[in-house]
Every structure is written in structure tokens, then in C-alpha cells.
């Protein structure tokens, strides 16, 4: 059946018809994307754009460059994705958006000094990108030639792509033909092609000879294809190590080298443990480059050795991670002597090949060595790029201290302080490894090192460490300090600056808060509300209570609290609610007025949380939160309605 189709498709008029059909699909995508005012340019890459065979559409890729006013945090990528996926319904050959998301370039980040993503740099320098829409790329990509460090990253990217390609794609021989061609091109770029020729000359790969047209319909088992591919990658990277003079990197570990890993029970990911005899590797930096997302493993990483077919083992591990691991779990898999980092994210498992060149430190650690060697040709560009990244990070932190950017549409900020601290200290850890050649293995060690080397910030670091523990424990009770968010930014930008000052003594400051309550004829409820104000971990500086014409025992309730709470009582005969609230604003003498109602119960950390919100930045005008439903003693249907539809929890 398929063979007949091939014959049919080879007829020239059909070829033209299909090309026209695909071209119209692409035009539709582009015209829909062009409706967004966020796009600077759209580039295309793939065999289709080089006028090659009709069957080559599975490798079409689009790279979208976003204008400078677009920030990653605005979530534009999701909106573009929706547009794209709507068109893709009719043109499945384009591949899903989730495969493309890495192909978004934010000019804003490049302008801030971050280097362009390596795959983009390689494609651009190779001339493989064809501008389909928009303007010229405005930045210099650092030289016209692809440098060795970029080629090594490209090889790693190809490996990741080969491992993660969907089943539909990975079963086509044409996919593997292309992957091997790309790998061969990288070997040429690295100048090791002659020495790894045998890797591309194996018997298993005979199936990949032939025109793409034919191979599009040929099935190739990825289990058979992946092993030679991984082997070729290993040979190429091995030759890179041999070809260039090697620089020995002898990092000083702090405080002591990690104990050599021994087989231990792995509590969090037990299934892997029992099946394969997993062991643990102590925490530490991953790779030599400040990869902002994956830089370090804070708790121990689980190391899994497998001995089966590489592809099958990887897929099995990915599947297991997805079903059994919890977000944040990290597994390092040693498959055919090659390391892969599997990282369980919120709703997917990410896979990062750790190559022996860019992640030489991890290989050394697993062998129980602390020193390692890196080819000089790779280390030089790597160091330059790291310097640029740290400078860009420093500027980003500096910009973010005390001022949150205002978006030009209504949006609410939500900060996860645990994330902020983790990100900040991943960067600090990377920076110390980079600039001071000092390897720090876990967060506790990092805090200890920083407190020793920067005694002027010791009190701040103590508070921060306790705050981290406090957040890990669920964030109930009294937080150790309230201005830590701003101080983390200050500290990181100060540490990354050459002569930066680490002046962070304002980590615990106060801001005057008045609580405003407007009440009317709810004496019983008011008693509850005032009682919960009395139990605050951070007491109110002032309570402005406006009695909006009550005729019940409100006055007596207020008097009963007057000796415990700093209440100022105002009686209005009959004012409207906004007028009563304005009276609160007029009469209070503090910097912040926190409004609540008489029929609300307030948790003890309410005021301290509000204070923390305002201290985040000088331009925080309003701090709010959630309103939970307070179930009645006797549940009615009305109460149930509120519980379901008006119960906004964190």
C-alpha cells in the first residue's frame, strides 16, 4: 500500500501540489503569527527551505525572534503557542509547539547581555536559517565561525533531540539519516571527522543509505539506531578531548571533598533503587557553564547504572520518572558510560545529556576524583561566555532591587521566595566555582562559606538560612526577617560586582501598618475579628475602626479590647462604605492601611505577610491575597454554593 503511494507521490504534478499545500500551510502560520505585535522576525530551517525532497517536511523548524519590549515573564510564548497550534491542526507536519518552544529568542534578554542560545548561533553562522518574515537580526553573534564550544553544545543538543524525539518521528529512517548528517557536520566543524569516520560507517547504518524520499517510508528501529548514534557522539567528544591541549582544572572543594558514593537506600525514588541498585552522588555543580536552570543538585542525586540497550533504558527511566518521581527529583543515569541528567519538572521530565567535555566535573566526581581536564579550545570560549552571563545576571538583579517593572496591561505579581532563594544561590554557587575555582557542594556549605568570607553579611545570611528553613516547613509561624527578598537581590548583585559592597543590614525593617475596619451592627463578628488581630505575630501599629452607625453592642465590644489593642474608634452616623474607608485613610497615620471586614477571621501571619509584600519594592501599591470560605456551623445549600464558587485558596 505504502509502496503504491510512493509511486503516486513521485509523479511530478503531485509533487508540485504537495509543495503548494505545505507552502500555504506555512503562509497561514506566518500570517497568524504576524498578527501578534511581539514578533521581530521568523526564521525557518530544514530541508524544505533548501528546496530538497518533498518527504523532508518532518524537520521543518521555526525560530521566532521576539521584540525588545517583550519579556519572558509575560507569557507571550503561551499565546504564540495557541496561535501556532490552532494552525497546526490542519498542518501536522509542522510539529507541535512544545517541540518549538526552545526556538524563541527574546531580544530583551540579548540586549541585557545574555548570549543568544547556542543552537540559534550555530544555525545562524552555518547559514541554515532563512528569514521568512520580519527584520534583520540586530545582534552580533560573536564571530562568523562556529567555535568549538558551540559545536560541542550542538552535539549535546543532537543527542538530546535523538533521545526525546516522538515515536512517530523516531521510527522513520529519514530522521536518523538527518541526525547522522548533522552529527557528521559537527564532527567536520570540530575537525575530528577523519578520526571518527568509522563511527559513521557501521553495518547497522546501511539502512540509512538511499534518498530521503525512500527513507521517509522506511522504518528504522530507534533502539538499533540510538546505540551507534551515542557511540559516534562519544567518539567525537573523545577526539575533541585528544585534539586540543588539555588544561587541568583542580577545583578546591569546600569544605571537604564529598565521600565516594556508596550504595545506599534511596528513600524518594525507591523503585529505581530496587531495580538497578542505585547509589547516591553528593550534591554539587553540574557542568562548567552557568546553566541557569540546571546548575546544581542541592540534595543528593540518584545515580543509576544501566547495561541494556541505551534507547530502551532511557525511555524506561523517563517513563518511571514521570509516573513515580515527584517534582524536583533528579536522577543521573549512566548509560553506556555516558551520563544523562533526568530532571522531574512539574508536568514533564527533562533530559540533559552530560558530555565529558562540558560536564567533565561530574564524570570526575563519579570516578572519585576531584580534579579533571578540559580541552583548552573549549575552556576559553566557555569562560568568556560565563563572564558575559554573570555580568548580565548581575545587572538583572540590580535592576530588580527595589523596583518591580510595570506591565502595560493589568497583572498581579506573585513571588515564590523559595524559588528566588534557590535561583539566587545556584547563581552564587556557579559564580564562586567560576571566579574563585571553589566547588561548594550543598546549600548549607554555601551559607557557611559565605558567612566566613563575608563576615559583614553574616547576620543577613543567618536570617536567610532560617527563612529558607521556615519556608520549607510550610511558612507558618514567625518569619525571621521581612525584607529578605530585596536583600537577596542586593546581595547577589553586590557579590557579582568586582568591587561590590555587600551592605545588606536592612534585612529586617518595619513599615507602619494601620488596620482599617468598617463595621455596622455586627458586634459578635467584630469580637472575633478583633480577637484575631490580637493574635498577630506582627502586631498592628494602629487600628482605625469606623462604626458606620451601629445600634447594637459594638461600642462595648470595642471598649473591651481598648486596653489590648491600639484602637482608634470613630462613629459616623450614616456614611457610605467608600466614605467610611476614606475616613480610615484620612485618620490613620501609618504608611500602609490594611483593610479587612468585621465578618472576617484573620490568620496570625496576616500582617507580617502584608509587610513583606510592601517591602518587596518601592512601587508596590496594593497587596492582596485570597478570600477563603468560612464554613457555617449548619451547612446549607447556599453555604455549599459559596464553598464551591467563592472559595479562593492559595
Amino acid at each position, binding site marked *: 500500500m505504502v509502496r503504491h503511494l510512493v509511486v503516486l507521490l513521485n509523479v511530478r504534478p503531485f509533487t508540485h501540489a504537495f509543495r503548494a499545500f505545505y507552502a500555504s500551510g506555512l503562509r497561514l502560520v506566518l500570517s497568524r503569527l504576524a498578527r501578534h505585535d511581539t514578533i521581530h522576525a521568523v526564521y525557518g530551517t530544514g530541508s524544505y527551505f533548501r528546496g530538497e525532497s518533498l518527504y523532508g517536511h518532518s524537520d521543518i523548524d521555526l525560530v521566532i525572534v521576539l521584540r525588545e519590549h517583550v519579556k519572558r515573564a509575560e507569557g507571550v510564548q503561551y499565546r504564540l503557542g495557541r496561535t501556532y497550534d490552532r494552525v497546526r491542526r490542519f498542518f501536522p507536519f509542522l510539529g507541535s509547539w512544545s517541540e518549538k518552544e526552545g526556538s524563541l529568542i527574546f531580544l530583551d534578554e540579548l540586549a541585557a547581555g545574555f548570549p543568544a542560545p547556542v543552537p540559534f548561533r550555530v544555525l545562524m553562522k552555518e547559514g541554515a536559517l532563512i528569514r521568512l518574515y520580519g527584520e534583520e537580526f540586530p545582534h552580533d553573534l560573536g564571530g562568523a565561525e562556529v567555535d568549538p564550544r558551540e559545536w560541542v553544545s550542538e552535539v549535546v543538543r543532537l543527542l538530546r533531540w535523538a533521545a526525546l524525539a516522538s515515536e512517530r518521528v523516531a521510527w522513520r529512517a529519514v530522521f536518523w539519516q538527518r541526525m547522522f548528517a548533522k552529527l557528521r557536520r559537527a564532527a567536520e566543524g570540530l575537525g575530528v571527522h577523519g578520526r571518527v569516520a568509522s563511527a559513521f560507517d557501521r553495518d547497522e547504518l546501511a539502512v540509512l543509505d538511499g534518498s530521503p524520499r525512500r527513507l521517509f517510508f522506511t522504518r528504522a528501529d530507534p533502539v538499533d539506531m540510538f546505540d551507534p548514534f551515542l557511540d559516534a557522539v562519544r567518539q567525537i567528544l573523545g577526539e575533541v578531548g585528544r585534539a586540543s591541549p588539555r588544561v587541568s582544572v583542580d577545583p578546591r572543594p569546600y569544605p571537604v571533598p564529598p565521600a565516594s558514593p556508596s550504595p545506599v537506600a534511596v528513600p524518594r525514588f525507591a523503585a529505581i533503587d530496587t531495580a538497578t541498585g542505585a547509589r547516591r552522588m553528593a550534591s554539587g555543580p553540574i557542568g562548567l557553564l552557568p546553566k541557569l536552570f540546571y546548575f546544581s543538585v542541592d540534595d543528593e542525586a540518584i545515580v543509576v547504572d544501566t547495561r541494556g540497550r541505551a534507547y530502551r533504558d532511557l525511555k524506561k527511566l523517563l517513563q518511571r520518572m514521570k509516573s513515580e518521581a515527584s517534582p524536583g527529583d533528579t536522577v543521573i543515569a549512566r548509560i553506556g558510560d555516558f551520563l544523562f541528567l533526568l530532571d522531574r519538572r512539574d508536568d514533564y521530565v527533562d533530559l540533559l545529556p552530560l558530555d565529558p567535555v562540558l560536564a567533565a566535573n561530574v564524570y570526575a566526581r563519579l570516578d572519585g576524583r576531584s580534579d579533571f581536564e578540559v580541552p583548552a579550545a573549549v575552556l576559553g570560549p566557555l569562560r568568556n561566555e560565563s563572564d558575559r552571563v554573570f555580568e548580565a545576571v548581575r545587572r538583572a538583579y540590580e535592576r530588580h532591587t527595589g523596583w518591580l517593572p510595570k506591565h*502595560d496591561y493589568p497583572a498581579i505579581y506573585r513571588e515564590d521566595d523559595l524559588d528566588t532563594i534557590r535561583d539566587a544561590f545556584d547563581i552564587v554557587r556557579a559564580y564562586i566555582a567560576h571566579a574563585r575555582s571553589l566547588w561548594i557542594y550543598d546549600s548549607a556549605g554555601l551559607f557557611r562559606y559565605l558567612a566566613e568570607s563575608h563576615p559583614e553579611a553574616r547576620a543577613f545570611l543567618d536570617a536567610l538560612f532560617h527563612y529558607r528553613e521556615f519556608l520549607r516547613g510550610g511558612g507558618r509561624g514567625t518569619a525571621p526577617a521581612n525584607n529578605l527578598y530585596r536583600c537577596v537581590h542586593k546581595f547577589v548583585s553586590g557579590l557579582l560586582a568586582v568591587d561590590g559592597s555587600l551592605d545588606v543590614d536592612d534585612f529586617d525593617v518595619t513599615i507602619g501598618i494601620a488596620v482599617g475596619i468598617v463595621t455596622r451592627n455586627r458586634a459578635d463578628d467584630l469580637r472575633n475579628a478583633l480577637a484575631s488581630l490580637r493574635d498577630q505575630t506582627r502586631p498592628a501599629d494602629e487600628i482605625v475602626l469606623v462604626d458606620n452607625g451601629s445600634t447594637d453592642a459594638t461600642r462595648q465590644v470595642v471598649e473591651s479590647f481598648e486596653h489590648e489593642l491600639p484602637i482608634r474608634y470613630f462613629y459616623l452616623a450614616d456614611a457610605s462604605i467608600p466614605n467610611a474607608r476614606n475616613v480610615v485613610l484620612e485618620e490613620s497615620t501609618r504608611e500602609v492601611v490594611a483593610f*479587612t471586614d468585621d465578618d*472576617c477571621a484573620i490568620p496570625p501571619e496576616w500582617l507580617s505577610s502584608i509587610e513583606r509584600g*510592601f517591602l518587596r519594592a518601592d512601587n508596590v501599591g*496594593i497587596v492582596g491575597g*485570597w*478570600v477563603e470560605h*468560612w464554613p*457555617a456551623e449548619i451547612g446549607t445549600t447556599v453555604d*455549599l454554593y459559596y464553598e464551591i464558587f467563592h472559595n479562593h485558596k492559595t
Partner: protein
Amino acid sequence: MIIELPILPKDRAARRYRMAFFHFSNNNLAIRRQCADEIGRYDPEMRTSEDVEICFRLAASEGWVACREPGVVVRHRARRTLGAMIRQLWGWGINLGKAYRKTGITGIYLYWVSSSEHAIALDLEEPRFPVLVTGFVTVFHVAHVAGLLALVLALAGRSAAAIVAGLSFVALLAFAMRNVGGRGLGAWRTLRLGCVAYIANVSFMTAAFVGGLRAGIVYIPASMFPPAATSERLYYEGERTG
């Protein structure tokens, strides 16, 4: 950092005129004095929804931003009777139109809110129109159009067409309110909950529509289905480099 968008907007040039403003409820809202001085105090004209209106002004201001903070949670006592609930929801809706009117925006901004994602699926944005016509249309609205059509057709004597329209009214309404079911409440309590939720929605939406007309705009509020929990989808994780 997570940026929380009130409802998923598509990007266009005139993003200032985004109709989905956010708001914090006044029983759990803290404001900086300097901010209140700059954007203005509560508007005495707004007998209810004064919190919505002040948040609109903050969203339109030059530099001020809003934060949602973990730990800033209050527990609020619900209304206990059907009458009190209707009065409360009527109060929530009746002054919303005034708040929109005060922004001074004119034009036609209509959005179709997808019932599965609670996000804007289709939009019509036309700033060149002398009055403000804005709204978030959901399946709940469409169901009522079908119901109205059934009524008109029945009065016109077209019984077959009226039955078709009537059946689609029931089907669409059941679809729009599907979140009410599936809670293991049993048929009788689910039916009662459905009736209460229906009454609540209709009171809120009627109030907002009538209030809009009184303020001189056409405002069609979104129905309150699906429940707030599904709006989690609208939180975006941003760049993590600070």
C-alpha cells in the same frame, strides 16, 4: 516570579485597553498611603465595588504594581440565606459598569471565554466606537439566547423549531453548569446546588448588565462558571534569573 494575568489576553498594540482588569476584594486589601494619594482615594459615588474601581486606577497608573502575597488570606463568612446571597451578588454587579465607565475607555471589546480553559479564545476589539461595549461571553450566555429564541418561536407558533431551541437551551445550560455536578452530593442536593448557583449567576449578571446600562455602557459580565480553582491555568512562570 509568577505573573498572574486576570484573564488570558492576546497581544495587540492597544494593550492599555485590556478589559479584564484585576481586583482584590476589599476585605483583604492593603494599600500604601503614597499610592492612595497619587491614584486617588475611594470614589464616594461607588456605593459597592469601590475596591474594583481603585484597582482599575492602580492598573492604569504609571508605576504602581500589585502583589499577591502568600499568607495574606482571610476567612470570610458567607451569606446564610438565599435572599442575602441575591442581595450580595446584586451589590457586586450593580456598580461594576460605573467602574468600567470611569476608565474613560470607549470602543467595542468582546471576548469569547472558552469554557474548558477559562481563557479568551476569540476576541473582537474595535476602539473606534463612541461608547464602551464590552463583555465576556460564555456558553452560559449562549444557552440563554437559545432559551429566548425558543420562547419567541413558541409564541410565533413554530412548535418544531421551538422544541429544538428549547432542547439546545437545556443541553447548553447543563454543559455550562457541569462543574456543579460530580461532587458526590446525590441528585437532590446537586439539583438544589444547581438552582442556587443559577440564581446567583443570573442575579450577578443581570445586576452588572443593568448597572452598565445605567452608567451608559453595555457590559456583559462573564458567568462565574467554572469555579475559581481552574483559573490556576492563568499563572505563568516567568524568567528565573531575577
